């Protein structure tokens, strides 16, 4: 009885040691799954910034908790741009004459006068299309006049304007490639464009008045 009792105790102790040993082995191999699971399922905690600590999401500075976007077409493709970065939308018709400058890249459509101001026109389709440029189409062309740098993005039809929440967009973490694509609007599966990143960096100085000829 006494021996049996000692055996049970011994067996119990050995089992505990064995379980502890195996658990340690598992933890060494796979880390602390319980802790990770807790972090992921805690809906009250701000999980996105925690996950983003190693690779912070490149959310543009124009993103507020809520913001408005304008949806526009480039050929068959629908894209969106933040309204906070667009100061005016003009219809590009025959009355807006475009002056073509020699030696400029294809995406630079030229200059036009708009309400007494000289605007630089960029072909959005060519800028986003890269090697596979998309045509904005000839009919129903519009210009999104940006609030910086006197740039106008030429696009096709204006679809509509919508208010979004920050969480309505899946923001791109790594924008080293296609920096103009800020993220994807989840319900429409539509790319949200960061307009100022669309104009090639280092070659988009603002126009300024010359001091002397």
């Amino acid at each position, binding site marked *: 009885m006494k021996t049996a009792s000692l055996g049970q105790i011994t067996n119990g102790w050995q089992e505990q040691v064995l379980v502890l040993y195996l658990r340690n082995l598992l933890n060494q191999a796979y880390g602390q799954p319980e802790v990770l699971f807790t972090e992921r399922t805690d809906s009250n905690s701000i999980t996105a910034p925690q996950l983003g600590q190693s690779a912070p999401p490149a959310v543009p500075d124009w993103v507020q908790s809520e913001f408005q976007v304008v949806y526009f077409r480039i050929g068959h493709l629908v894209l969106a741009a933040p309204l906070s970065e667009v100061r005016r939308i003009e219809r590009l018709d025959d009355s807006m004459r475009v*002056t073509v400058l020699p030696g*400029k890249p294809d995406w630079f459509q030229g*200059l036009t006068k708009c309400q007494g101001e000289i605007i630089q026109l960029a072909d959005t389709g060519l800028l986003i299309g890269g090697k596979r440029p998309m045509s904005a189409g000839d009919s129903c062309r519009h210009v999104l006049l940006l609030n910086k740098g006197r740039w106008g993005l030429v696009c096709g039809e204006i679809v509509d304007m919508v208010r979004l929440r920050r969480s309505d967009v899946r923001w791109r973490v790594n924008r080293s490639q296609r920096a103009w694509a800020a993220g994807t609007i989840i319900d429409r599966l539509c790319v949200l464009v960061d307009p100022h990143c669309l104009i090639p960096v280092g070659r988009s100085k603002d126009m300024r*008045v010359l001091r002397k*000829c």
Partner: protein
Amino acid sequence: MSEALAKRSDPVNQWVTFRLGEETYGINVMQVQEVLRVTEIAPVPGAPDYVVGIINLRGNVVTVIDTRRRFGLFPKEPDDASRIVIIEAEDQVIGILVDSVAEVVELRASEIESAPSVGNEESARYIQGVTSHNGELLILVDLNQFLNDEDKAELDLF
């Protein structure tokens, strides 16, 4: 007194305007020597494609440049409206072939906006600025930058 000060700080320059295709360009009148109708232009073998040829201008040999080609536009055969504008750029006299010559306009320095700095350095070099004139945009060309050192060296050979 204040008017004189304003003139000094915002000088007025005259520009000769010419047409190339749908656009109007301007060059500083001080650099224009004369404007000629297109006469016989002798081709120069081995010359760069933007060189139309040479003309005899009162005993002087002047190289004529096809401004359309220089600006990367489609070439066009000269017609009755075409002109050769004889210009002096950095001590070099050359002729530039243009579709037509329009007028001389006066522009204040403050009316001129710098050209957009997009594209290659080559084109940014010779477009001095843009301005609005008679409801359309006028592209101002800096003739001193019209030819680079390599071009000048090639033209010296003629």
